[in-house]
């Protein structure tokens, strides 16, 4: 009998506050639209990893043209087609996001860097084409900004074997194009080296040569080397 009393009183204790809960819910907001203005196309094709700048889904944020931000979403960026893919969380479908609806996106962690930001800009991909909107990685120094268009292109076909069966595989190579914005000027570097840099900024050629001479490798091949020289040059702009 005592046990029954205790259980009943326990149930009363738990049910009493639920009235407060109901009341709180009564004034809770009714359902809202989950996301602001993300538009895209359902993508059912294969996501061939080699063509992607990030072969695996990376968590990040999507910054929309409307100014809204969708945080903690899984994104993949295709460098070959310059397309952004989003794994929408409700049905887990892959959405090819309308590029024009996105101002930029941001990877929480990418190739060893945290907070890598890509912004949409109009550029000319090659000498003959018209300008088009592309996603470029943005690195902001104090006076200058570096934009990297992480373009991928087809290199060759290669044989590979799986369980003794030989197949052909496309090999893609990343061919980044660098853009440096200083003041109102945008300089393009399809091959980033000391000579191109001196040609773009002849008034700073002495500083550039001096930096390269004194640097450990004496070259500008890796992205870290490029970032280092731009960090150094930033003071001279």
């Amino acid at each position, binding site marked *: 009998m005592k046990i029954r009393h205790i259980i009943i009183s326990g149930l009363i204790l738990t049910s009493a*506050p639920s009235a407060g*809960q109901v009341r709180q819910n009564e004034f809770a*907001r009714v359902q809202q639209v989950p*996301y602001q203005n993300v*538009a895209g196309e359902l993508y*059912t094709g294969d996501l061939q990893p080699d063509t992607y700048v990030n072969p695996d889904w990376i968590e990040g944020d999507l910054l929309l043209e409307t100014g809204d931000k969708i945080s903690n979403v899984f994104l993949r960026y295709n460098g070959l087609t310059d397309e952004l893919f989003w794994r929408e969380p409700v049905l887990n479908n892959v959405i090819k996001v*309308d590029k*024009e609806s996105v101002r930029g996106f941001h990877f929480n962690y990418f190739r060893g860097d945290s907070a890598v930001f890509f912004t949409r800009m109009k550029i000319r991909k090659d000498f003959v084409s018209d300008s088009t909107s592309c996603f470029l990685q943005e690195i902001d120094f104090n006076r200058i900004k570096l934009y990297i268009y992480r373009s991928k292109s087809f290199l060759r076909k290669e044989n590979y074997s799986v369980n003794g069966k030989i197949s052909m595989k496309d090999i893609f190579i990343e061919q980044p194009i660098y853009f440096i914005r200083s003041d109102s000027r945008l300089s393009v570097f399809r091959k980033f080296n000391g000579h191109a840099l001196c040609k773009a900024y002849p008034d700073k050629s002495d500083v550039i040569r001096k930096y390269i001479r004194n640097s450990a490798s004496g070259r500008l091949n890796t992205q870290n080397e490029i970032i280092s020289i731009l960090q150094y040059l930033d003071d001279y702009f």
Partner: protein
Amino acid sequence: MTNLAVLMMLLLIPGSSWPDDPSAGLINTETVYLHTDRNFYIAGDHLYYKLYLKSGCSDSSRFAYFIIRDEKSEVISHSRLELMDGVSYGSIKLADTLKTGFYQIVCFTNFMRNRPETIFRKEIIIANRFDDDVSYFPEKDRQSSGVNVSSNVPKPGPLNLRILTDKNIYERREEIIFTVEPGEMPVNEILSLSISVSQVIDYSQPVPSITESFLKDPEGQSQTNLNGPGITYEMESGTSVIQGTVSEIPGTVKTGINFSSPLESHTIFLSAIDTVPNLQYTTTDSSGKFCIYLNPWYEGKEIYLKLRSKANAQITLDSRYTMKEPFQPTRDFNRNYVREFIKRAVKTGQVARYYGSEAKPDTIETFCSYHLPPEVYFKTYPTIYPSDYIELNDFFELSREIIPGLRIRKNNGSYSAGFPSLQYQIVSDEEPLILLDGVPIDNVNQIIDLGSNDIRYIETVPNVRYFNGLYFNGILNVTSKKDAIKNISFSQPFRQTQTDESISFTKPKHFNPADLPSHYPDLRYVLFWEPDFKPHGSKMDFTVWSSDIQGDYVINVQGITRSGLPVAGSATITVKAK
């Protein structure tokens, strides 16, 4: 017994159903106070106001609503006010055609409608200069005689301001100098003041000051939504809100009994006529209610709301300008005094209009910032201009001849559209999303009669589209030449409404006697109105000029401090001829 103890422990774990905060279920509220330049107007005048908002929540409303009702409780004017730092000020132009009589100003935020007793109400008199028949005012006479303008003076308190005038009685067109002293607090503690010097009619119960309104003990107020089983009104802290209900159409239920039952989980589309295909949506909750946080792009536009799916239902929109409670004037006034006052005001109003001496308000701030529309698709697809081709009579022909990818089928006299190339259909039995002039329509039958001469251009999006959580089996967007959407009759539940837009912050130019020609009469009832005075330095001195109208004037000062506390002060002066 040990098991029992464990069971009891589990039952009492906080966070399961026991609220962390005992007051969590209680709703906080907002209070508004409206300071008007006076309480008597001539039809055609500008009514100047300043609105103060006090919020009991961590967040506060961005919009307030302003209604003027006549004695039949009909809304004669309504506006949406934008609040900046908890205040809003501006002017409402009173229509020339208003009859002489009592009117009520009602001010509230959407959130305040959950507790109607907190809604601000104030009575005013409006007189028409062509309507001097004061028999409208009932015969009942208050016992008191004469004017008692001091009834507006707030009771003494620490938050009261002191108004010091250089004298009590002034001549006509004389300089009046007064100082506002902030009592016990430093001047720089005051954030903003609104100051009026005007003749007011003492005809009804005195309007409480901001201190009395804001410091009212909330204990006496009920904690429940008094709107019955209706909508819980949302706080509009960021964007405007559209609320409503979807219910079955009464009288169409099989049993023949009239009742409205809610429809759950229905998707409601919201859009406006535009060349850009635009869309916002929401879904109904378990009781059929819905709430849309409106994209600012839709503000001031005529919008269309419709259900995505077929249903024997109706959409009822909440109208915040409709008040159930009737307006009943207090009728507690000195009849003779008011009649004489109105007769005199009507005459001076006629003369003032002849000289055109009423100052127009200056616009201080407008609220029409640029916003992007919520576009349904951004990717550009080839646009088809029917005018580039031979003339085709209807949309069926157009689809067959010039729209690639789209197939329209006819079955039992009804048409259906689809993109056969779609590899993967999420909503298999649905047509593509069809937009006419930017607005979603029910089906292709509604546009089947449109031919080449009616259509400006057509866009097709022949893939499964994702839009903010919704999927569509492709999109067909038709833009007509002459807003054909206006001639469409919808078979699915549909409503059309006009959204609100905030009115600008305005204030009048301060009177300068040099601006008035010497032979012109000065017929101002309001000697001074400054809605947004921000104190600088240690003194708050003001200079105003009396007009040709004799009588008692009230200097009425209302405001708030930097810590959000209300402050008020009042004084009376008299203007007399030599």
